[in-house]
């Protein structure tokens, strides 16, 4: 809303820019999500995130990759999960893409916790925490359509 000729707008905050892009293509095999996790750790550190946030990103990337492997690609080893790390001046963006639109079968991202008491009682499946954790640990989460599959896009801001 500021005047375009004011000093503040004459010297605006620099828009975030992309420093680097790093891409992984992983088979849909349990265990390979840890490769994404290691890459998440390295790229988050390079993006300047503090240690506790690096761990948050690691877990979120791990959960998103497992979701894509399982729900999107049915743990078919020949179907790939694409993980793209976009290191930006303001933080780290991560995109996790499956081949079969898995994330459209999941309710819209929300940080509402599943009811643990129902899961302890066995009246609900004990699983299904991945998206909750991703939303809780990252600053931004969204699902976007892609040509081949669905993409979960998430962002951790550098403070």
């Amino acid at each position, binding site marked *: 809303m500021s005047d375009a000729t004011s000093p503040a707008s004459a010297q605006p905050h620099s828009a975030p820019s992309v420093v680097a892009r790093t891409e992984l293509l992983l088979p849909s*095999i*349990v*265990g*390979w*999500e*840890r490769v994404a*996790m290691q890459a998440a750790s390295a790229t988050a550190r390079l993006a300047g995130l503090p240690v*506790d946030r690096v*761990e*948050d990103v690691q*877990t979120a990337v*791990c*959960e998103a990759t*497992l979701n894509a492997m399982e729900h999107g690609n049915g743990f078919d080893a020949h179907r790939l999960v694409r993980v793209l790390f976009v290191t930006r001046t303001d933080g780290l963006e991560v995109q996790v893409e499956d081949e079969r639109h898995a994330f459209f079968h999941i309710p819209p991202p929300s940080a509402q*916790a599943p009811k*643990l008491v129902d*899961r*302890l*009682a*066995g009246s609900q*499946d*004990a*699983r*299904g*925490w*991945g998206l*909750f*954790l991703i939303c*809780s640990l990252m600053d931004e989460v969204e699902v976007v359509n892609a040509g081949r599959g669905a993409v979960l896009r998430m962002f951790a801001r550098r403070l």
Partner: protein
Amino acid sequence: MEDELRAAVRGTAPTLVVDLHGALTTLGSEVLETALEDARRLAAHTVLLNFHDVDYINSAGVAVLIRLMGRMRETDQKLAFVELQPHYRKVFHMMGLFQFAPVFDSEREAIETLQLS
């Protein structure tokens, strides 16, 4: 590729410790189940689950733990978490697990706080 979960039971009833080593994922289901069943057969009233040597936990692994916690509640056994890494402590807190099983920095703290023998 996946570190296998290993578990060892030690101590004497009514309080036993289950030491976990490796990664807690869905692949560790049988190992964890066997260890907790061993503890039950050894008449454990309280089990301290020690995570000191656990370097990776995912939500599927926690789901395994939740299922087993449900079974322990049915038999009135108590469970406490010990030596969880700070990040996983945060994750467990987010999931609400500490409402049903407390967490302690050390076995000693758990034993003193819970007044265990």
